């Protein structure tokens, strides 16, 4: 998947997550701010990495502000942001 521009998706309301995707020329970086970071930070990171791999995305900065979203929501928001960035 080729990303052409930065994009954002989701919200910061309860059970949702806001994810920003910034294509950049550097090694990928994932910043996670989460209400449940202690409990689920690692799992969120794994999920994001696996979606990036699935979509063959590299050299990207991902900013995540999570409000306790379940995996299906994180996945949907990241896919939306990638879809928008690829437009």
């Amino acid at each position, binding site marked *: 998947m080729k990303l052409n521009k930065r994009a954002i998706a989701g919200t910061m309301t*309860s*059970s949702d997550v806001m994810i920003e995707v910034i294509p950049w020329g550097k090694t990928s970086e994932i910043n996670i701010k989460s*209400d*449940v970071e*202690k*409990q*689920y*930070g*690692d*799992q969120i990171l794994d999920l994001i990495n696996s979606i990036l791999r699935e979509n063959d995305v590299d050299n990207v900065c991902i900013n995540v502000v999570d*409000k*306790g*979203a*379940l*995996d299906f929501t994180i996945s949907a928001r990241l896919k939306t942001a990638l879809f928008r960035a690829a437009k």
Partner: protein
Amino acid sequence: MEDRYDINELLKEKGTFTGIDKSKRKKNKVRSLKYVIDALDIKDGMTISFHHHFRNGDLLADMVLELLDKKGTKNITIFPSSLTTAHDHFGQYIQSGLISRICTSGIRDRLGEDISSGMLDTPVIIRSHGGRARAIESGEEKIDVAFIAVAHSDVNGNANGFEGVSPCGSLGYSMVDMKHADKVVVVSDLITEEITIPFSVPSYNVDYVVKVEKIGIKEKIMSGATRLTTNPKELLIAKRTADIIEALEIIKENFTFQTGTGGSSLAVTRFMRDKMIEKKIVADFALGGITGHIVRLHEEGLVRKLLDVQCFDLDAVFSLKNNIRHFEIDASFYANPENPGCVVNKLDVVVLSALEIDRNFDVNVMTGSDGILRGASGGHCDTAAGSKICIVTSPLVRGRIATVKDKVLNIVTPGSTVDILVTDHGTAVNPLRKDIMALLKEKKIPIVSIDTLVEMAEKIVKKPNPIVYGDKVVGVIEYRDGSIIDLVKQVI
């Protein structure tokens, strides 16, 4: 036989009347806060107490601590009935060495984080409202000075919480302090020459009266009226709870109840009201933190008496002031386990909430899912133990945090006193209560096992990383009888 009574001896002992100068009578007890603090000579090792009826709008605790801190006082115990966000910055008094020990019911936000990180060397003692009253009355905790913020006092300390510019209503938690503290200081922003009537604090319990410019931040003390939830999930839980209360045949003439103030508990009252009207039933009393909604039931004639240890909104405050059977009670009468007449023992049903509840029905209302202190013991374990039926209501998960789980991080209320758990995903009955189980089955109320709920929750949120605890114990949770039910560990 003894000698005849010696009248001369008596005259010598008592002295004879020599006249009186009316103008030399002591005028009143009003002094400045600084004067009082100096005069009381609060020093190392002493215990001072506060109440939390002004909740997030409390200004007094900080005023007192600031003065003591400026004086360089060290090593004191603070013994508030609870701590709120108004006390968020108290970490600074721990760091300055002023506070060396804390006993409270609740602790949250930044102060909770500070304590959980290990800022205080001595563990915080967490007590329920009943447990606190017991500790004071039994002499386990001695209060040197009780500072009691009130909404209105006269110059000699006859005071109440429901008049004045920043009313808080019932002063129930502080009533125990005023009877047992060595010295009692009443503080208010409304002090009148005219006697306060009715008063909740009698002047004979009061040593000093202090006038301050502002005793509380009005909008942070309480809201005008507690709003009924429109959140469909809370309504769902509330309706299920009310249906269960009905199915258990609790709603009978002269029944008694307590419902919390959380979104669903409050709504339970609303659904119960419908059923009471339908069945033409009047409750004997409602207990606890009182809200405008309970007041309405009282005023509609559906509840005869309101026993009020704490008001939750201004509607309740007005009612306390105006309704004769809306009665202010103290924490000991409310819940002291050593007082067999305490009213929690007369409850037919209590509806409570939970931060966490587990397979054993053990309930945590003290620490968050990250292990950090962010709650209050309150009357939770008191009412659970006293009531005939204790119902805990809670969503199965909050955001991504499971409420129903394998093992709670900290126990405040033992599962043996919790009978029913109502969640949005189903209702579970404590296996110890076969009678309830049978009755609900007969009434065709759907029941699932607690294990099913635990599994459902885990399937939704997935297993979290375990909390990383340090070795230090930062909190000791006392059960209401004074035994230790759990320890709170430092979170790294």
